[in-house]
C-alpha cells in the first residue's frame, strides 16, 4: 500500500508541472497585464514600464517562465503584484478558510446524503421516498450561488423582520466572524464562527448531498436484494442491524469513491459561494487574481487546487481499499 501511495504521488509530479506550465502560458497569453489597474492618463507610461521592470515582466516569456519555475521549485511563490505581499502569506491565510468551509460542507454532504439515501432505500416507493426524491432533484438543480442568495434573503434578512423568530436561527450574511469578534469571550467566539459557517456550508454542500442521497439509495437497494442479506434476515437479526451493520458497509463502497469526485467540485463551488458570502478563502483570491492578472497568485492558487484534487483522488482510492478488503494495490 505504501509503495502504491508513493508511486501515485510520484506520478502526480509531471501532471502538476504540466498544469502549471499550461496555466502560465494561458495567463500570459491573455490580454492585459498587472499594470492595467493603474492605467490612467495621469499615470505616465514610464511608471507602468518601471512597474513591469520591478516585477520582471519586461523579460522574454521563456526567461520569466524559467525564473518562476526556479523560485517555485525552491519553495518561493513570489510576491503578489496586486496585494504587495508574499504569496505564501496569502495562501497561509486563505487555504485554512477554504478548508474549513469545504470540510464542513463535505461532512454535511455525506451525513445528510447517506442518511436520506438509507431511509429512501428502506422505504422504497413509499410516499416519503417519493417526496425525498422530488426534493432531492429540486435541490440538486439549484445553482449554489443562487441558493446562497436565497438563503441570505430568507435566513439572514427576512427573519430579522419576524419578531418571534429565535435569534440563534438568524444567521449572519457574510464573513467568517462578526465585526466585534475580537471583543467576544472564548465560547462566544466559537459560537460566532459556527454561526457564520451555517449558510455558506449549506449553500455549498446541499446540492451534492442531494446527489449523494440518490447514489446511496440505489446502492443500498442493490445490496439489500443480495443473498447474504436474506440470510441475515432469515437468522432473525433485527432489521436495524441488518441494514446498518451488514448492508451499510457494502453499500458505502461506491459512495466512498465519490469523495474524490466531490472535492474538486467543492473547491470550484467555493469560488461562487465565497463571493456571495464574502468568505475570505482561496476561491475569491483566485478570481480576483485572474482579473488583475496577478500572475504569481494565479500560479500558486492553481497549484494548490491541483494538489488538493490529486490528494483527494488518492484518498478516495485508498479508502476504497480499506472498505473493500478484496481490492489490493500491489
Amino acid at each position, binding site marked *: 500500500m505504501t509503495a502504491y501511495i508513493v508511486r501515485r504521488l510520484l506520478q502526480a509530479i509531471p501532471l502538476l508541472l504540466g498544469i502549471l506550465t499550461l496555466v502560465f502560458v494561458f495567463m500570459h497569453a*491573455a*490580454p*492585459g497585464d498587472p499594470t*492595467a*489597474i*493603474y*492605467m*490612467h*492618463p*495621469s*499615470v*505616465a*507610461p*514610464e*511608471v507602468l514600464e*518601471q*512597474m513591469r521592470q*520591478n516585477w520582471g515582466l519586461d523579460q522574454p516569456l521563456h526567461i520569466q517562465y524559467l525564473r518562476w519555475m526556479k523560485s517555485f521549485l525552491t519553495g518561493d511563490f513570489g*510576491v503578489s503584484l496586486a*496585494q*504587495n*505581499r*508574499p504569496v505564501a502569506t*496569502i495562501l497561509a*491565510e*486563505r487555504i485554512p478558510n477554504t478548508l474549513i468551509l469545504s470540510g464542513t460542507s463535505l461532512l454535511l454532504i455525506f451525513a445528510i446524503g447517506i442518511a436520506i439515501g438509507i431511509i429512501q432505500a428502506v422505504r422504497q416507493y413509499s410516499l416519503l421516498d417519493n417526496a425525498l426524491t422530488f426534493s432531492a432533484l429540486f435541490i440538486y438543480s439549484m445553482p449554489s450561488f443562487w441558493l446562497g*442568495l436565497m438563503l*441570505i*434573503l430568507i435566513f*439572514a*434578512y427576512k427573519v*430579522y423582520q419576524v419578531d418571534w423568530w429565535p435569534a440563534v436561527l*438568524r444567521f*449572519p*450574511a*457574510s*464573513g*467568517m466572524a*462578526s*465585526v*466585534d469578534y*475580537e*471583543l*467576544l469571550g472564548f465560547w462566544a467566539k466559537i459560537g460566532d464562527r459556527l454561526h457564520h459557517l451555517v449558510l455558506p456550508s449549506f449553500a455549498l454542500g446541499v446540492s451534492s448531498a442531494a446527489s449523494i442521497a440518490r447514489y446511496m439509495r440505489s446502492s443500498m437497494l442493490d445490496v439489500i436484494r443480495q443473498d447474504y442479506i436474506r440470510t441475515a434476515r432469515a437468522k432473525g437479526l433485527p432489521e436495524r442491524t441488518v441494514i446498518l451493520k451488514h448492508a451499510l458497509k457494502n453499500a458505502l463502497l461506491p459512495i466512498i469513491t465519490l469523495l474524490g469526485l466531490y472535492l474538486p467540485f467543492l473547491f470550484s463551488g467555493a469560488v461562487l459561494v465565497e*463571493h*456571495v*458570502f*464574502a468568505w*475570505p*478563502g482561496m476561491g*475569491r*483570491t483566485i478570481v480576483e487574481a485572474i*482579473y488583475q*492578472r496577478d500572475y504569481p497568485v494565479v500560479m500558486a492558487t492553481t497549484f494548490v487546487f491541483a494538489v488538493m484534487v490529486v490528494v483527494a483522488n488518492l484518498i478516495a482510492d485508498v479508502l476504497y481499499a480499506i472498505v473493500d478488503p478484496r481490492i489490493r494495490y500491489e
Partner: protein
Amino acid sequence: MNHLASVDDISNELQNFVLFTTLIRYDVDLSPVPYLAQSWDTTASGDKMVLTFRLRDDVTWHDGAPTTARDVKFTFDRIKDPATAYPRVSSFALYDSAVVHDTYTIAFYLKRHPGFMDPWRTVSPMPAHILGDIPAERLRDHPFGTSTPLGNGPFRFVEHRSGDRWVFEANPDFPKSLGGRPYLDRLVYRFIEEPTTRLTELLTGEADVYLIVAPSQVAEIEASSEARIVAYANRNYAFINWNGKHPLFADPNVRRALTLAIDRQEIVDVVRQGFGEVAKGPVPPFHWAYDRELEPLPYDPERARDLLDTAGWIDRDGDGVRERNGINASFELRTNPNPTREDIITLVQANLAQVGVQVRPRVQEAQSLGRDITSPERLFDAFVLGWRAEFNLDARPLFACSALEGPYQWASYCNPRVDEILDEVMLMPDRSQALPLWHEYQEIMQQDQPNTFLYYDMRINASRERLRGVEMDIRGDLISVRDWWIAPADRRQIGNSN
C-alpha cells in the same frame, strides 16, 4: 496602506482620512485649507516658485515619534524616485526638489502653475523613521503596507485580515486643533462583493455604512426606517466613445445626430433610478468651470433623422438600416461586464434602431477591451465606459491633437481650437479669466460630440440612522469620518463599530 504603493480609491480614503494626515485638505469650495501643514507661503520669480510649508508640531506617529518635515521630504523623494514606480508621479511633474529648513519647515522648488497645490490633497506623508532605509523598489512589497502600517491620523491600525477586513481604533492623542480623538471607538472596513449581501448587512445592522449601493436597492433602503441614502454628485460621467476613424463616425453631424437620437434622460431614469444628470460635455457640474447656461442636446429623433439624411446616410434598400456608398450604418457597441453599462447598450440599441442605425452589442472582458481601445490601430467601432474628471479637468489626453497617437485618444478627435483653449486654461491662475474659455470649450464639445456624454454620475451610499454626523461629498466618502458618532443608547453592547 502604504501610500507609495496603493493609490486605489478606498485605500486612498483610508490613508487620507483615517490612518494618516494630508498636508492640506479641500474645503467645500475645493479651495485648499491647512491640515498637517498649518500654513504655507509662496515666492515667485519668473516661471519658478518656492512653496514653503510650515507643519503642525503636535501631530505624532502612533509610536510616539513626531511627524516632521523629514517625513514629508522622504515621501516626496520616494515619489520622485522612478524606482518606486509611484503611480501618480506625474501629478508632481511641476515639482523639482525639496529642502528641509528646520524640523517643521519644508520648501519645495517648482514651476509656476495655478494647480500647484492639488497633489498635496491626496498625498499622506509616510513615516521616514520606519521606511527610510527600505530601497525604493522594495517599498511596494514591504509589510508596512499590509500588516504593520503605522499612521499619524485620527485612527490607529489594529488588524488587517486579507479579503475580509481592516480594523482601526480611535487615536486618543490626535491633536485637539485638528478635531481631537474621533467619536467612534472602532472602525471596521469590510470587503463584500455581492450587492445583495451588502444590503442585508446594512439592513440587519451588522454594517452601519454601505458604500456603492446598487441603484435597484435604493427603494428598499428608503423604505426602511433604520437606514437612509447618502448620495452626492461625484466626478464620474458615462459616455459613448465614437471611433473617429470609422466611416460612420468621422462626420460631427452624424455624431450629433446619434446623440439626439439617444434618450439620455431615460437612461438616467432606468439604469441609475434617477441618480444622475443628463451630461452636456466633459465638465461635470461640481466644477466652477461648468457652463450652467448651456442646454444639453435634447432627445429629438426627428432632427436626428434629418441630420443623417443630410449627411448622406439614407436607407435605399428598405431593410431599416441606412447606408452610404454601400456601407451600412451598423456598428459594434462594446462595454466591459457591468450590469449598468450592459443596460445602457440595450437602450441605445433600441433608440438608434428608431433612426435606422444598427447597433451590435458586445460585452468584453475589461482587460481585453482595454487592449483593443488603447491600441494605436483603434480596433473598435464604439464603446460605453465611465470616466472620472480630475479636479483640473485636463482632458488633453482624451481630445488633444497632440495626443492622437496616445492610448486615450479613443475618438481620434482633433480640433486645434480645443488644443489652444486647454493649453491656455491650464496655465491661468485667475478663474474669472479662464471661465469664458471653459465655456467656449464646452460649446465646441457639444457641437462636435467626439463622445456622446451620457450622464453625470452620482455616488450612492447608505448609512444606518443610528450613525450620526455622516456627511459625504465629492472630496470623499470618509471625509467626515472623524465626526461620525453614535448616541449611547444606540450603541452595541459589546464595542461599537462601523
